[in-house]
C-alpha cells in the first residue's frame, strides 16, 4: 500500500472507532431506543462533516484559493434565504406539511440553481482577481443575509419560528426524511466529484493552462458549483449554516495528505470532517455533558485557523 492509502485507511479506521464509541459509550436503559436516537444523530454528524469537508475542497479549487469556504461567500446565506422565501410563499403551515425529504429536495434544488447562476457569474467575471472575488463574495453574503432578515421581518411570528429553527447551527434535532434525502444527495455528489477528481487536478492549474490542455474548464466549474451547492444544502438543511468548519477540514486534509490530488483530498477532507464532528460531539455530549456547544466550538477553531492562515499568507 502507498503511504497515501495507509493514511486514508487510518482516517477511515479512526472514524469507525469514533462512531462505535459514540454509539456504545455509557449505553444503558432502553438500549434499542437509545441506539436509534444515537444512530440518527451519528448519521447526521457524519453527513454534515463529510459534506462540509468535501464541499470546501471543491470550492477552494474552483476559487483557486485555499482560504475560501462556501460559507464565506454566502452559500449557506443563500440557503437560508431560500428557506425563508419558501416559508414566505407557502406559509409556515404549508412548509410544515411538506414531507421532510420533499422539502429538502425543493430547497436543495433552488439552491443549486441560484448558486450556480450567482457564483458562476461571480467566478467568471472575477476569476482573475481573487481578492476582488472574495470581497464581492463576502458582500454578497451580507446582502443575502440582509435579504433573508428583511423577508423574516415581514413574516408572521409563528411562521418566523419555522425559519428560525433552520437558521442556527444545531446538531440537536434532525428529521429522518431529511437525513435520508441528504445522505442520498451527498453520496451521489461525492461519487460525481470523485469521477472528476483527475480533471479537477488540471483545473487547479488555472483556466488558461487547463484549457490549453484540452480540459472543458467552464463545464467542469459548472459541475463543481452544482456539487458544492448540493453538499452545502445537505449540511445546512441538517444543522444550519456553518462558516469556518470546512476550512478546518480542508486545511488539515491538505497538510496531512501533503498532495494536490483531488482523488485523495476529497475523501480525506470528508473523513476528517466527519471524524472531527463525531469526536467533538462525543467529547461534549458524553464526557462534558453539554452537546449544544459543539457548533460554537468548531466555528471558533475554524475561525481561529482562518485568521492564522490569513496572517501567515500576509507575511509571506
Amino acid at each position, binding site marked *: 500500500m502507498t503511504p497515501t492509502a495507509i493514511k486514508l485507511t487510518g482516517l477511515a479506521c479512526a472514524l469507525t472507532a469514533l462512531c462505535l464509541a459514540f454509539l456504545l459509550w455509557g449505553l444503558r436503559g432502553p438500549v434499542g431506543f437509545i441506539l436509534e436516537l444515537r444512530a440518527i444523530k451519528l448519521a447526521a454528524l457524519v453527513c454534515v462533516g463529510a459534506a462540509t469537508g468535501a464541499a470546501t475542497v471543491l470550492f477552494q479549487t474552483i476559487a*483557486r484559493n485555499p482560504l475560501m469556504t462556501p460559507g464565506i461567500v454566502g452559500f449557506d446565506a443563500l440557503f437560508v434565504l431560500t428557506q425563508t422565501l419558501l416559508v414566505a410563499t407557502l406559509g409556515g403551515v404549508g412548509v410544515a406539511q411538506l414531507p421532510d425529504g420533499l422539502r429538502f429536495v425543493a430547497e436543495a434544488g433552488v439552491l443549486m440553481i441560484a448558486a450556480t447562476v450567482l457564483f458562476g457569474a461571480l467566478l467568471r467575471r472575477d476569476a482573475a482577481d481573487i481578492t476582488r472575488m472574495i470581497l464581492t463574495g463576502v458582500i454578497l453574503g451580507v446582502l443575502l443575509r440582509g435579504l433573508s432578515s428583511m423577508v423574516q421581518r415581514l413574516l408572521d411570528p409563528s411562521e418566523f419560528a419555522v425559519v428560525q429553527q433552520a437558521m442556527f447551527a444545531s446538531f440537536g434535532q434532525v428529521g429522518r426524511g431529511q437525513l435520508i434525502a441528504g445522505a442520498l444527495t451527498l453520496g451521489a455528489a461525492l461519487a460525481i466529484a470523485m469521477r472528476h477528481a483527475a480533471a479537477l*487536478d*488540471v483545473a487547479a492549474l488555472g483556466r*488558461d*493552462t487547463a*484549457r*490549453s*490542455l*484540452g480540459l472543458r474548464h467552464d463545464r467542469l466549474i459548472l459541475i463543481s458549483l452544482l456539487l458544492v451547492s448540493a453538499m452545502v444544502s445537505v449540511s445546512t438543511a441538517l444543522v444550519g449554516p456553518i462558516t469556518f468548519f470546512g476550512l478546518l477540514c480542508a486545511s488539515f486534509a491538505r497538510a496531512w495528505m501533503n498532495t*494536490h490530488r483531488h482523488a485523495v483530498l476529497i475523501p480525506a477532507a470528508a473523513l476528517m470532517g466527519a471524524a472531527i464532528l463525531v469526536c467533538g460531539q462525543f467529547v461534549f455530549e458524553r464526557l462534558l455533558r453539554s452537546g449544544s456547544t459543539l457548533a460554537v466550538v468548531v466555528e471558533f477553531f475554524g475561525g481561529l485557523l482562518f485568521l492564522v492562515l490569513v496572517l501567515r499568507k500576509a507575511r509571506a
Partner: protein
Amino acid sequence: MIETAHLDLHIGDTQILNDISLRIEPGVITGLIGPNGAGKSTLLHCLAGLTPVTGGTVRIDGQDPFSADDTARARMVALLQQSPAIVSRLRVHELVAFGRWPHHQGRPGPDDARHVDEALEAFDLTALADRPLETLSGGQRQRAFVAMTYAQDTPWILLDEPLNALDPRHARNLMARLDGLARTRGRSIVIVVHDINAAARWADRIVAMKDSRVLAQGPTQQVLTPATLLDCFDTPFDTIPHKGRTLVVAQ
C-alpha cells in the same frame, strides 16, 4: 503552417487585434516582438484557439482551432501562458505529467510515463522531479512549465515570454533546447520575446506587432532593420552584423 486572415478582436470600444493576417512557417522558431500592450499575448491565445476572435479566421495546418474538439485542439497546439499559477504541493514530475492530459484524460499509460521522463530529461529536471513547485526558483519553475508544454507533444508550441525570470545561462539553455526541437524534431515554435537580441539570435522568422496590428513579418534579418525597429518601438536602434547574425543595440 498557421495562417490567419484579417483577425479582428475588440472588447467594447477597445481594439485589441486589428486586421491580423499572418503566415507562420512550420518547423522553425518564430519570434513575436513588439512594445507592451501591442497585443502579442492575445494573438497567441487566439492562435491557440483559447480567446475567441470577433472577426477573421485562424487555420492551424488547415484546421480551425475554434471549431475543433478540445482534446483534438490540445493535441495540435500547446500554449504556455505568461507566469502561470502555482498549485501548492504539486511536484515537478506531476506538473510535467499534466502535459499528457490531452492524450490520456486522467488514465495515464506507460507511453505517457515515457514522455514525461523524456521531457524531464530534456529540460534538465530529473534531479528536481520530486520537488514541490513552491520550493523551486523562478527559473526552475519556468523550465518545469516549458517541460509540461513539451510533454504535450504537439506539432505547434506557443510560448508567452518563457525567458522571463531566467538568468543568461538558463535563457540560453532553454532557447538552445527549443532550437534543437525545431531542427531535429520538426516542432514549430512561436515565442513572445522582449529581448530583441534573443529573437535575433534564435528566431528564424520574426513577427513585429504594434498598436494591435502586424507591422512586419518575415525572415529575421529582413525584419530587424533600424527603420522597422524605430517604427515598432519608437526608439532608435543600431543593427550590427555579428557572426553572421544581427546584433541590435539601442542608441
